[in-house]
């Protein structure tokens, strides 16, 4: 383990690196495509429409409220899993940079979370429009949005750190990721609502770190409800607990990364 004070001072010194790295990575991802940066809005919209089609075909019916719940949950889900997926690759694909300069590796998973946040922000606008049209508009519960977002970002960073470390030691990890995130989507209250879970499956509320986030998030936008105390407790416990665990794992292994990539 490095000395934490000195380490995070070095991380803080690299904040412009994180901003610049995320920006140029985003630019490079859509570089040369016809719609360019518009894809940041088109992607999530298409995604929501495709899943809406799925619910309509399988569930037989779907209304505006369902669609609003779906988009709210889906966009938040992708905030976390985009960070996880990019985080997993952040160390193994940082080869040249890691082999040739000395800097705290922590900044690479952070950049993955920041990129994911950059992709999430346009979806907030889309979500705002959809809920204004289809669900309940302004309510005081909207004031909880920043707090939930901060905890969700901490959770996103925790998963980025965790899978970044795992992927250094087990390169097979990245091959499992598409299946893992797909299964996770079906275990999260995105395509359905927690209230419609069969009794046997209700423990998912507590075992899936994303459940309290998606429930609270959709509750705020659609019903105008403030999150329950249980939901707050779960969100705090999952995000802070996983963040501490993942940071410890990452920091205690970090010095070996250059030898393993």
């Amino acid at each position, binding site marked *: 383990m490095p000395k934490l004070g000195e380490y995070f001072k070095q991380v803080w010194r*690299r904040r412009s690196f994180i901003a610049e790295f995320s920006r*140029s990575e985003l630019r490079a991802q859509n570089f040369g495509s016809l719609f360019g940066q518009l894809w940041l809005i088109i992607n999530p919209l298409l995604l929501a429409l495709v899943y809406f089609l799925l619910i309509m075909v399988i569930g037989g019916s779907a209304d505006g409220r369902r669609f609003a719940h779906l988009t709210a949950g889906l966009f938040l889900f992708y905030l976390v899993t985009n960070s996880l997926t990019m985080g997993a690759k952040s160390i193994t694909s940082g080869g040249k940079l890691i*082999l040739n300069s000395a800097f705290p590796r922590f900044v690479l998973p952070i950049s993955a979370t920041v990129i994911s946040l950059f992709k999430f922000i346009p979806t907030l606008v889309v979500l705002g429009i959809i809920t204004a049209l289809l669900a309940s508009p302004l309510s005081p519960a909207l004031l909880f949005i920043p707090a939930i977002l901060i905890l969700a970002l901490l959770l996103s960073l925790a998963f980025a750190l965790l899978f970044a470390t795992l992927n250094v030691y087990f390169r097979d990890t990245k091959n499992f990721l598409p299946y893992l995130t797909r299964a996770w989507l079906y275990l999260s209250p995105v395509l359905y609502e927690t209230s419609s879970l069969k009794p046997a499956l209700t423990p998912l509320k507590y075992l899936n770190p994303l459940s309290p986030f998606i429930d609270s998030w959709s509750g705020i936008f659609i019903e105008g409800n403030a999150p329950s105390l249980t939901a707050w407790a779960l969100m705090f416990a999952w995000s802070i607990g996983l963040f501490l665990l993942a940071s410890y794992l990452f920091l205690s292994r970090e010095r070996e990364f250059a030898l393993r990539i």
Partner: protein
Amino acid sequence: MNLLSVSDQHNSGDRAISIHDLSLTYLTTVERKPTFRQALTQTGRKTREVKALRGINLEIPYGSVLGVIGANGAGKSSLMRVISGIIPPTSGRVEVEGKISTLLALGVGFNPRLTGRENVILGGLAAGLTREEIQSQFDEIAAFAEIGDAIDSPMKTYSSGMYSRLAFAVSVVVEPDILIIDEALSTGDAKFKKKCLERIKSLRSHNRAIILVSHALATVKEICNDVVWLNQGELMMRGAPGQVITAYKESLQVAASPAADEDV
């Protein structure tokens, strides 16, 4: 500190780097014949222990250009990475006094999808420079590299010569106390190489410490005043360039071949 002109900060002979009993051992995976049958029957990975460095002791003073020579796989790049703090040593100690700039195996341009400009900025920020420091030196870097408009093209479109021009420009313009150049000069053309050597000499006369890893023995002889020879992770010899290079060539039994002096 004025970053645009070379300033003297250290006295010649002051200690820049001292290395005590340094060893580096790591595991690599081996896969002799990757067959489908083997993939099914053997899920684990076979590993082999590599002793990259064995008990290295070395002091490098300011005001010197140290050449590091040795066959491929001798541990030269590993030693440079340990000195720069990128790889932790298995045992032993490295003490560095000053700011290191590394030019290891063309470190700039880690992301070929980004432009040269973006890579330079990112590399500098990762090294801990501020945006202002990089901006104030960017024009000088671009001018030194002489790659023209290509600075704003993705680096995947660069030739290897353009790559090394940019990498070299970054590491010398940034004005390090200690400069490590790992085989970066070999892809440049004769004119650019001459310019680089002049820059190295200027840094040396301003009491910087420079380590040059190279297979180009003629270059090493020309600009180094001190040479070490590594072989299979061990320090075989240290001394005046002529002497060490002769001993190294004898061990390779290529003394009569002019190819050994060339940059290839």
